[in-house]
């Protein structure tokens, strides 16, 4: 498999300087190794700290149980699924997986195909909500941009859908997606969609 690699820039949160990074349109063994050997220990330290402070599990990072090795193994070889990752400073900074078989729900585009963002996770050390100052900024946005760009390339005109973990609701509203409310068929998570017009505006801003 040939992996498409695009240069992108992130922001060093401490210095404010831009950092060279790669957006890759696949999740390979190197990313799974990083997830296992770097993300997992960092996340475990955060969870232990939260447990020590008596923070209830409902307030823990909601993706703490995600297993990227299993997620990627389930869809290996299937055309309907694609992975993306951001690599910078020699390690994986973010991962995403999309599904191309879903259709829109937003009344103005109902039934039309979209890119559905199944999973998006940023490395624990880049997540300000986990307590420490983040190292790099822009990883999540880069992965969303990749999904919207794929939607355009596939002829879906930028349409994007996703179920948001509660801690990310505000982010998806901020980037202009339409909040279609809680989905009782999907763990009562809120479902967000990006229309063709919203996608155009989002890509112009990026």
């Amino acid at each position, binding site marked *: 498999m040939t992996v498409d690699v695009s240069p992108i820039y992130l922001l060093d949160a401490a210095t404010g300087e831009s950092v060279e990074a790669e957006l890759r349109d696949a999740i390979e063994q190197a990313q799974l190794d990083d997830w296992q050997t770097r993300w997992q220990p960092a996340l475990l330290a955060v969870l232990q700290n939260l447990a020590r402070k008596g923070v209830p599990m409902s307030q823990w990072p909601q993706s703490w149980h995600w297993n990227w090795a299993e997620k990627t193994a389930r869809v290996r070889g299937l*055309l309907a699924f694609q992975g993306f990752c951001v690599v910078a400073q020699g390690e994986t900074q973010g991962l995403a997986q999309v599904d191309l078989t879903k259709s829109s729900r937003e009344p103005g585009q109902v039934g039309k*195909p979209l890119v559905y963002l199944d999973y998006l996770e940023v490395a624990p050390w880049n997540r300000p909500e986990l307590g420490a100052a983040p190292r790099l900024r822009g990883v999540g946005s880069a992965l969303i941009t990749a999904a919207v760009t794929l939607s355009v*390339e*596939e002829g879906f005109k930028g349409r994007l859908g996703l179920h948001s973990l509660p801690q990310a609701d505000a982010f998806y509203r901020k980037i202009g997606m339409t909040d279609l409310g809680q989905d009782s068929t999907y763990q009562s998570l809120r479902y967000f969609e990006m229309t063709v017009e919203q996608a155009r505006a989002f890509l112009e801003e990026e």
Partner: protein
Amino acid sequence: MMAKRTMTLNLTDAEMRVLDELSIRKDITKTAVLRQALRLYQTIDARVEKGEKLLFENEATKEKAELMLL
């Protein structure tokens, strides 16, 4: 973007009509319709091969019907 290859497709009038209709209704190109069809067919085939069934449910009546794939 992944490199693509070109192929000629021979379709009957009826098949071409369906392709045209889907392309308009789904707001995607005819090529995108065929690519979607291939993705869905492969996904369904992989799940059926694992012993799963494909069921349709009527949202109003909750009636379920199995789609037989031979």
